[in-house]
């Protein structure tokens, strides 16, 4: 399904084409604001701290993708899983054919092959807390979608500096927004009934061959010049090709 642009969560009512960059404007999820997040008063500060893309206007500070704990010991990583199967998709883009039983409630986000498992909030956000510095792997398990694992580097020297890249195509992410690379069809699509499929099947071929032998062969033999035919028969006799008839008892009489 590739990258789809609509930004459902945009806090500003910016018309779609005026969004300057290919990232979405999102606020830090509600409810996390009081959980010991460093209060970042300006976009500039965030830029300095985490060296990440920070895209905001003078009115709204929008967090980019990593926020840091004030203790500087542990980092929390939060991101957003782009789930187009959400029913609230305003544009209705990409929702066709995704009538999946699984909703966001069944999407798991997994850190380091199962070390921490978390679920998505209704708006698609996820959060990992107490992540030590180092390189980590985030995987998303969602039935029906193929997500690339994401490599997340949490810097030890420079707390708050977080880099992310898709491991499948080594594409760097300016923002921890995870999107499925493609959707997965687990079933073969049944071809509708057609005459060609019957003809192509072994049975069809058999019938076809039989028809050819029965109706076309005599015609071919008929169209042959009788002279030529006799010559061919003579040749065969001369070469002494043992015919099945001559081998059979009683067949030798002719």
């Amino acid at each position, binding site marked *: 399904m590739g990258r789809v642009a609509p930004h459902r969560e945009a806090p500003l009512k910016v018309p779609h084409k005026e969004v300057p960059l290919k990232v979405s404007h999102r606020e830090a999820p509600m409810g996390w604001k*009081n959980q010991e997040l460093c209060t970042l008063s300006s976009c500039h500060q965030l830029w300095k701290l985490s060296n990440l893309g920070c895209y905001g206007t003078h009115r709204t500070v929008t967090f980019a993708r990593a926020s840091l704990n004030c203790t500087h010991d542990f980092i929390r990583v939060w991101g957003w899983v782009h789930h187009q199967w959400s029913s609230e998709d305003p544009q209705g883009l990409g929702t066709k054919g995704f009538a999946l039983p699984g909703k966001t409630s069944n999407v798991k986000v997994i850190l380091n092959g199962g070390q921490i498992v978390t679920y998505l*909030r209704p708006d698609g956000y996820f959060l990992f807390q107490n992540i030590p510095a180092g390189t980590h*792997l985030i995987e998303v398990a969602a039935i029906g979608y193929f997500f690339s*694992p994401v490599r997340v580097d949490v810097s030890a020297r420079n707390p708050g500096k977080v880099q992310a890249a898709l491991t499948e195509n080594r594409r760097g992410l300016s923002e921890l927004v995870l999107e499925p690379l493609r959707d997965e069809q687990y079933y*073969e699509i049944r071809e509708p009934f057609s005459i060609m499929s019957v003809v192509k099947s072994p049975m069809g071929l058999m019938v076809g061959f039989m028809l050819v032998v*029965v109706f076309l062969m005599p015609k071919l033999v008929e169209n042959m010049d009788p002279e030529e035919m006799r010559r061919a028969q003579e040749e065969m006799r001369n070469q002494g090709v043992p015919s099945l008839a001559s081998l059979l008892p009683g067949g030798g009489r002719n």
Partner: protein
Amino acid sequence: MAIRSFFLFILFFSSSISPVFSLYEDQVGLMDWHQQYIGKVKQAVFSSQRAGRKRVVVSTEENVIASLDLRHGEIFWRHLLGADDVIDGIDIGLGKYVITLSSGGSILRSWNLPDGQMVWESSLQGPKHSKSFLLVPTNLKFDKDNLLVVFSNGRLHAISCIDGEVLWKKDFEAESFEVQQVILPPGSDLIHVVGFAALSQFEMYQINAKNGELLKHESASFSSGFSGQVSLVSTETVVALDSTGSILLTISFQDGKISSQQTPISNLVEDSLGPAVIIPSSVSGIFAIKTDAVTIFIRVIGKGNLEVVEKTTHEIAVSDALSISEDQQAFALIQHASSEIHLTVKLAHDWDGNLLKESVKMDRQRGLVHKVFINNYIRTDRSYGFRVLIVMEDHSLLLLQQGEIVWSREDGLASIIDVTTSELPVERDGVSVAKVEHNLFEWLKGHMLKLKGTLMLASPEDMAAIQSMRLKSSEKSKMTRDHNGFRKLLIVLTRAGKLFALHTGDGRIVWSYLLRSLHKSEACQSPIGLNLYQWQVPHHHAMDENPSVLVVSRCGPSSDTSGVLSFVDTYTGKELSSLSLDHAVVQVIPLPYTDSTEQRLHLLIDADKHAHLYPKTSGALSIFKREFSNIYWYSVEDQNGIIKGHALKCKCTGEVADEFCFDTRDLWSVVFPSESEKTIATVTRKLNEVVHTQAKVVADQDVMYKYISRNLLFVATVAPKGSGEIGSVTPEESWLVAYLIDTVTGRILHRVTHHGSQGPVHAVFSENWVVYHYFNLRAHRYEMSVIEIYDQSRADNKDVWKLVLGKHNLTSPISLFSRPEVITKSQSYFFTHSLKAIAVTSTAKGITSKQLLLGTIGDQVLALDKRFLDPRRTVNPTQLEKEEGIIPLTESLPIIPQSYVTHALRVEGLRGIITVPAKLESTTLVFAHGVDLFFTQLAPSRTYDSLTEDFSYALLLITIVALVAAIFVTWRLSERKELQEKWR
């Protein structure tokens, strides 16, 4: 060139690259079945919503939270938390949020009750580790917002129910303070935190619930100390036991003043009983203590006067209190009688009067009642009715209402330890398993129903009955052996110590048996099941015997406790016999020999390295003596990084001597340097694997001989630093070493180092190859590598004559010192997902090409053709190689969605994948288990030996008819033509 043509024949089968396993959506459920479970319930909370569907929210020992339908026991929604995310408490807030506290009280989550969507998540830190409590008071309100009170990690939090915001917090930093209870007296704004400090000090804190302010702190010291838990008998009184377990302390802290009273248990009960423990319960005014044999219920009257209300020797389970009106609390009590259980519901202040007394017949195979949860409903006549949810010893969950079992769930199947299979009986008159055959009346009834169905007279219920009958009698779920070997019994051992037999056709439980030998007893304190082995598989001379399985279990968690063996008949599900061993069971080695009754010989190695032979019969002993010098095995000592090879020496000497005990000797040992290598995975070939061809024809008409040995062991070691989680180590200080070791000689046949890689390693060994999955830190991706090992000593045998007359590996000298001439080929590829399990398909004769079955982190099972892991893959294969079926080399292994064998399903909490060959060569049976169970049939090279399900018989018939018609038409035509010829 018979062999070569045969290879071409195989290649013909395996020549298509397109996904071999693929399914149409309408074929789901034809070959496969999927069952969802939750595990043993730890805690249950009933949703008290008036409207809507009645539901109960449960948390389980498998870290599942689930919302169940109270009417039928079906799962509305379910979430499996991470393995370390153990659930400490659940509750329902504001009537619409499920609140869970997990990970030792450090993660608090809220889920939407109707659909299970997570609403918010909070992380709670604290100064030190402590018990954790989750309380959802109904009366504490902050402008429309309910408060949650959580005590965890030595800190008391008040949290908003709507968005998980921490409103205030209070630390309890006193080093030795151990919290025992957090109490919210109804109708007040106070929180009481009580606990012990320094083992003999009782502490009470009174806190303002509005702002977390400490109002009062009182303490009192008790010279005799405390032991175990406390029981809350009212909001201002707790009962504790002193350190000897013989004196009851009643401590009340009314108005912030601590007063106490001591009552020796011997004052209450005449005969001395030994040390007691308090059974945690929350029924006001009553508590229970339990000694070895007796459970005593004690009532607290006034200020600390105790009175025994009941003494019982029956096994008993008590529920928490349920308040049914302002000042009335009810609780449920379950007592066991021989084959039934007695349920009584009493009011807390009135022991002698029963609100409800019922007896329910209970299947003995469910064992004892472990937990009871009570819920009430209002009957049509406005009186109270009660329903109880009970958790049994076998981990099953049952709902009792009006003296009946409304529904039951076999949640023991969520924790399978081991799996084996058993054949079904051969179809013969009077042969069947358990209670499948029905009597004449039922047979007649069935036919009448069918007749009704055909005459269109059947009601919907009749139709359902006919449908279920059809399913039961349909080919796939019959209780007899079938020609293709698709129908088998899956025998599974669960953590609860129960054996289940599942039918492969539809996954139903044929029989279940709670192992008596796994019951707690004097000699065996905490028995645990270990493994299942096929004990007797009759086929030739013991046709009339029923097959049986061997269950090996142990009396405790450590490996030197004595073992227990039980033998269970797989047709009837009855225990044939059980043996309490006087030695430990460290290792069980099924030997490839069977005695005259087809009982397989097993060698059990105990902690003192003696080998014990089972069955203990003279016949078995004579067979064993014959093969005495051919028996080798190995052992892995994980901590020391040593792998040792062993062989038998002689009869046991010393006091344990009996005929079936043997001394062993060490043959060799491989010691890995502990500072640089730590063993993390060892894998061998499956014992019952069949290899069809020893040679492999490669493109240029060359032959390569597989090095096939039953005694190959794959070992993976990592740098000790890199044995932790991904990301805990840099690529420079981490490496992974893979070894191939011959377990008879101890020789390392191959060793390869992957620099910058780390575990976890998942590996599978089959034929002459091993495939392993690990993490590459440099690329930061998972990788899979394949090692294939070939026998070079026979490489000269290029054609049939040389094969017959030439060098054979039997003629080459076998010696410890001769180095086997082997070459290995290996290759590595990237793979996207983390793995949870890995297996390989196995077929009856080993002719069919193989597929790897990968249990991914998303709990799906992916089938990957082994040809993708062929070390001979190159970027540009030559024409010859292409003909041979070699796929051009790619950087990563493809994930084709159609080749997920679990299609759109998840095997939640996947732990293992088992493959069993069917009799039909093309087909293998796959069973994946975790919290869920999934079973399907796989044909790795398509079903070349039978017609597929979607084969159109109609088309075949039409073709035949068309051909016959054509024959007649042409015959007539030719006759006519001949006649014309003759007239001419």
